[in-house]
């Protein structure tokens, strides 16, 4: 047993902790929004103006006791199961950003209260202590204890009703440090950050939003968990915008597939669900703000897209072709204080295994879609080939070599289609029927070509088909699928970029050089484009293996 003195916990701890945990000044906004969400707020306004930031909510507010307790450091009476913030430090997240933090709060049927933190003075006192320590040894009693630092610089007051009329809480950060203000006054930067980290509703610009939201709500209900969404309005001086999750149909080319849901379960442990929308065009999502998957707990983001999840996908190909979220619903799986990852525990290990399974399942789903797309394209090409050959047949009836070439090609295409059919690539009933029709037509056409070859051998004249016959036969074939047309790549660099691989300027130049030296030479434009198409197919197959 040891007896501690006040000075055993120095005031410096608050500076060290907040600097380490909230490296980005925007993290402070997230922390105050977390408190609003915990206070059951449905509407939050974030206002960033000269000299101050305000986060105001319509939550249940705090009474005097709750406000008094809010100043505690590393002590929280919030239940991690129901609350987003539970570490008891978030209130100090603006320690290095502003001179003064003031919080007004009011609960129903009570007068409001106000609490003020003089962060500037706290920082100055700590700075002074640091300067003194450079000059001489400081005695124990001269050190600024945490308790003293807080006591001297925090005040709490009762207010009159008219001082703060609305029920809820208003957090004011006054006297922003210039550098922080510059960063925080960039509307797009702040908006994008908040849209990625907060529990916001889907934008109507994303057609699957409602379906996904309903699925998440249902899962939460099944697991007796709250599902909180907040409406956040961001104002940076005269720029104002309601914030939504950043997903947008326009990020897909040509469109997204319907969301695919995955249950995250490891044995008896249910961790949550994941959803992903794959780019139908089999190319990477160009907007890197939304590309890939994010992990969410109680609506707030854990880590970022590339750090936490990408490694489980092993290859970035389908990760980069998708947007999605992993929604963690397990109440005991807790994020660390800076929300960069989860706290180490056996549960986390189990969850990571689950992520690995999810990534594998998602990759398989992506591969299946890619194969089906390819199979559909091949089927469409076969239909084109049939129509063309059928229409041109009259011109070749006397040319055995031309007939043989077409017969050989028919066989080759037929074989490829059979292989894809046997591998289950024509999944829909319609496409299976189409495949059967095409195969039957191929057989008939082959028989016809063979008969022409036979007749030619016997040196008899061949009766030409009428245009009417050809049209009838061609029309009997199925129309083209709604499979998207293959993307036309104009050069090697476009192919590399379509894979979603980040390349710097040097690499860009190297790829351009390779293209000029080895791919483009002595080729017609059509040959060059065909080579690129083939190259893209090979790369896709390589990445799948």
């Amino acid at each position, binding site marked *: 047993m040891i007896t501690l003195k006040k000075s055993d916990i120095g005031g410096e701890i608050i500076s060290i902790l907040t600097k380490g945990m909230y490296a980005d000044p925007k993290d402070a906004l997230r922390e105050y929004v977390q408190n609003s969400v915990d206070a059951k707020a449905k509407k939050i*306004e974030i*206002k960033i*103006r*000269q*000299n*101050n930031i*305000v986060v105001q909510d319509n939550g249940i507010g705090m009474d005097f006791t709750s406000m008094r307790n809010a100043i505690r450091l590393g002590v929280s009476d919030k239940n991690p199961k129901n609350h987003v913030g539970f570490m008891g430090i978030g209130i100090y997240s603006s320690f290095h950003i502003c001179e003064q933090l003031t919080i*007004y709060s009011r609960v129903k049927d009570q007068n409001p209260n106000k609490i003020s933190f003089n962060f500037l003075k706290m920082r100055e006192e700590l700075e002074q202590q640091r300067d003194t320590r450079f000059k001489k040894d400081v005695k124990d009693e001269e050190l600024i204890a945490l308790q003293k630092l807080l006591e001297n610089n925090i005040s709490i007051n009762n207010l009159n009703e*008219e*001082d*703060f*009329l*609305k029920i809820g809480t*208003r957090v*004011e950060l*006054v*006297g922003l440090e210039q550098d922080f*203000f*510059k960063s925080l*006054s960039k*509307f797009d930067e702040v908006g994008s950050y908040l849209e990625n980290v907060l529990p916001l509703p889907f934008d109507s610009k994303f057609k699957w939003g409602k379906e996904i939201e309903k699925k998440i709500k249902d899962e939460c209900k099944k697991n007796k968990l709250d599902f909180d969404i907040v409406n956040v309005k961001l*104002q*940076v*001086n*005269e*720029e*104002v915008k309601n914030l939504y999750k950043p997903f947008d149909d326009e990020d897909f080319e040509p469109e997204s597939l319907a969301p695919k849901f995955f249950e995250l379960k490891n044995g008896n442990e249910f961790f949550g669900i994941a959803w992903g929308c794959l780019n139908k065009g089999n190319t990477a999502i160009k907007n890197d703000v939304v590309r890939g998957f994010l992990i969410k707990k109680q609506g707030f983001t854990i880590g970022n897209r590339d750090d936490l999840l990408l490694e489980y996908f092993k290859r970035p190909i389908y990760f980069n072709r998708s947007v999605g979220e992993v929604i963690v619903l397990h109440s005991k799986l807790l994020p660390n204080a800076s929300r960069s990852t989860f706290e180490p525990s056996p549960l986390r290990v189990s969850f990571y295994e689950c992520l690995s399974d999810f990534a594998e399942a998602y990759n398989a789903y992506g591969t299946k879609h890619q194969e089906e797309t390819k199979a559909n394209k091949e089927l469409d090409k076969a239909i084109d080939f049939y129509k063309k050959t059928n229409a041109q047949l009259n011109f070749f009836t006397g040319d055995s070599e031309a007939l043989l070439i077409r017969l050989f090609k028919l066989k080759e295409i037929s074989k490829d289609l059979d292989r894809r059919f046997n591998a289950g690539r024509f999944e829909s009933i319609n496409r299976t029927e189409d495949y059967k029709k095409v195969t039957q037509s191929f057989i008939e056409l082959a028989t016809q070509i063979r008969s022409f070859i036979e007749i030619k051998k016997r040196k008899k004249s061949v009766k030409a088909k009428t245009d009417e016959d050809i049209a009838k036969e061609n029309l009997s074939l199925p129309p083209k699928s709604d499979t998207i047309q293959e993307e036309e790549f104009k050069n090697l660099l476009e192919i590399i970029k379509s894979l979603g691989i980040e390349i710097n300027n040097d690499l860009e130049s190297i790829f351009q050089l390779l293209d000029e030296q080895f791919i483009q030479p002595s080729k017609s434009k059509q040959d060059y484009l065909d080579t690129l198409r083939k190259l893209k197919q090979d790369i896709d197959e390589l990445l799948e293996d």
Partner: protein
Amino acid sequence: MNEFNDHPVKQVIREQWCKPLIKHLYEKLGYKLTYLGLPGIDAIDILAWIDYLNKVIAFDIGYYPKPYNKTKAEENIAVLSNILNELETNGSIETYSLFHGYIEDVVLKGMDLNRTPFKLNEVVTIYNLDFCNPLTAPQKIIDPISGEVYSFYKSEVIRRLLELQRNHSSTNKNTKFIFHITVHSAFWEAEAENLFSGDNIDLYNQYTKSLAELDEQEKNIRLLRLYMIDVIKTQFCSNQFIPEFLPTLYYNGTTDNWLLCFTVIGTYIRSAAGKAPFYQSTEKLISEKFLQPNDINIKHLIQNFVREANCPKDPVEAIQELKSYKEIWLK
């Protein structure tokens, strides 16, 4: 402190001229108003009209005496910011935004001294512009994007603000607003070289003749009135706002500058020609008496050497006589 804000005459204008008009607009529109202007670091105008305001868009340089002192300016801006913040906290206004710099600079450069972009998010219902600052004109500004240097007259600010107002008005067809603008001799001198060319030359010559008996100052304020009416009329009409002028206030500022305060009622009108009509007659407007506020009330200015007609001293009575008010506002 802003040299013009603490003057007793200003109080009379604020309380007896502007406030009844603002109250009337608030009652007519049925919702609280959006203010854009220069409230001064004590925000006296805002505090006086607070019952009718919902939002404040404020500009302030923070420090008028030369040379400009950044630290002092920022302290002053913080005072204004604190007042606005308090009004927002106690629910008197819903929100505000604050731009640091001369309004001319901020509006034309598109950003303030802290490089905060200047944008307008909605229709403004009360403009309270004051071109009494010590900036001379024409000003030189550097376009932050192209790096080109441009000269501009202060009246350019009116054009730019009305363009922004028009952009929002195309989605909000019922735009009605009050436009107060105060100018003083420096404005007149700086912009004079740009005066009365082309279409106005006859009217100018004729009017100048009729003012021959007056002393230089009295003559000049009347020419300035003609000039301002012409500038405001042109900018309003070309942005599809019908301008209707209320009587002009004429008074002495604290530093013995003579000041003119114009009040214009703006009404958005959609027109195929992209231009709003002008219902009033410039000749009639310039032949009206000035209103002269003193420390107690507002009176007609009697000038013996020129014949000028009476005009309403009550702003609400004045607005109710306007054609756009009768034909559009009352509908």
